[in-house]
């Protein structure tokens, strides 16, 4: 049977495999309810841009997905596997969380490279020690990845001696080294000097083009519009509006989104 025809015959039903599903996610810090019931699904190859004002809960949502924050309630399904949660939202099975985390590579606003390790050591750390890849293999792959993000020759350098843009590209190489099924970017360019933003966006654009699944929290609206196939607008812990970039950016429905877009434009 012709697969292309099959795919074309059912354009409505999404037959691609699901990568990340979040259902009715709530998160409170003490009395402050930061997420008030978020639902989100990303399929393989999706680039989901998450936009919203400061404090709207974007980081918290991303961090709940790999349990850097413990959700208050809700359901999280990664690659079809539901994360077992206790009634208080804490992970019931730490081993499961650790296994799932190795498939979700996170890229942080502040890079968070390990400062006492060289770039090469940063990139091979998780493959060698967590995934038990033979060291020689991990090193060869790390060289490839560092080359790919434009850091060939910097293998032996410590992060503190590099610019923010270089550090963030190294952090992306570290993320790629685990061969993740999805990548979580939390404002990857917000801590960078304006002239360094471009080099990082170029790398991310490349990854989107090769079909990587990504959740991307960003303030770069132009970029989001260009690389994302789905845009989510978060307002005070709820998804206020979502859809294809052309709709969300070209024809916003809610006043809040209109206001937000005009404020960041």
């Amino acid at each position: 049977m012709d697969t292309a025809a099959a795919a074309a015959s059912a354009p409505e039903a999404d037959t691609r495999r699901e990568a990340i599903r979040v259902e009715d996610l709530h998160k409170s810090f003490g009395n402050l309810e930061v997420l008030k019931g978020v639902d989100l699904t990303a399929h393989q190859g999706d680039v989901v841009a998450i936009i919203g004002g400061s404090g709207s809960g974007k980081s918290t949502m991303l961090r709940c997905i790999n349990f850097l924050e413990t959700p208050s309630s809700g359901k999280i399904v990664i690659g079809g596997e539901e994360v077992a949660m206790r009634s208080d939202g804490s992970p019931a099975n730490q081993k499961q969380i650790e296994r799932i985390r190795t498939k979700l590579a996170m890229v942080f606003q502040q890079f968070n490279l390990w400062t006492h390790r060289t770039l090469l050591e940063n990139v091979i750390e998780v493959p060698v020690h967590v995934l038990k890849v033979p060291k020689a293999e991990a090193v060869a792959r790390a060289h490839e990845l560092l080359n790919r993000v434009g850091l060939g020759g910097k293998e032996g350098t410590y992060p503190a001696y590099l610019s923010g843009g270089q550090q963030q590209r190294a952090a992306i190489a570290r993320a790629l080294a685990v061969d993740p099924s999805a990548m979580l970017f939390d404002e990857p360019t917000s801590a960078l000097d304006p002239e360094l933003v471009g080099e990082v966006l170029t790398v991310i654009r490349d990854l989107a083009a090769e079909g990587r699944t990504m959740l991307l929290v960003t303030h770069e609206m132009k970029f989001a519009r260009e690389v994302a196939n789905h845009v989510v607008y978060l307002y005070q812990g709820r998804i206020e509006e979502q859809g294809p970039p052309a709709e969300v950016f070209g024809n916003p429905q809610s006043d809040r989104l209109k206001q937000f877009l005009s404020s960041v434009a």
Partner: protein
Amino acid sequence: MTGLLELLGLGASAELLSLSGWGGNLLRGLANSLQIAFGAFGLGLVIGLFGAYGKLYGGKVTRDLLAIYTTVIRAVPELVLILILYYVGSDIINKISAAMGGGRVEINGVAAGIWVLGVVQGAYATEVLRGAIKAVPTGQIEAAKSYGMPAFMIMRRVTIPAMMSFAVPGLANLWLIATKDTALLAVVGFNELTLETRQAASSTRAYFTFFLAAGFLYLMVTLCSGAVFARVEKWARRGQPSLKGGAR
């Protein structure tokens, strides 16, 4: 030179300090002191690491117990602690031995010294390491978590290496304190450097010679330790641009 030595009454010093005589005793005392200092420092580090993790991440009971431990040990003078820990320790061991039908147990001086000073060092090390762990940027640990590292691996691969640069200066101090605290063990009759010196001095009446020699030995220990710790600190600070500027 000879005249000066005569003047100070040190003419016979060289002879007195010969290795086959009292000088040898002093060196043996030094060896004992260093052995205890090493052991106590090591034990202190182990206690300190558990103590620091317990204080930072332990439950309420753990934290309370550790607070009592560090407060009491740091409040009571070391000399008093040594007397308490030494006599209480040997008493307990003898009671256990008696209960099991044994006789009096000869307490091994080195082991006792290590245990006593190690418990003291542990209290200070707990605080040094707790501060150092807290100084590690949370992002480093979060990154490790987010890539699926189990807790123990995070401690081994990320937290401990990253905290070293904050801990080394404090630990260097603790080591020097350990070498000097061994002198306090003289009160329980342990043959470390200070006791050997006192014995040599009172037997020969050459107080000045022997205490000067002992002071010199302690000074050498300090100087060598300083050199070693400078290297350790340099290693621990790898990856951090020098404060003096001029990266690399």
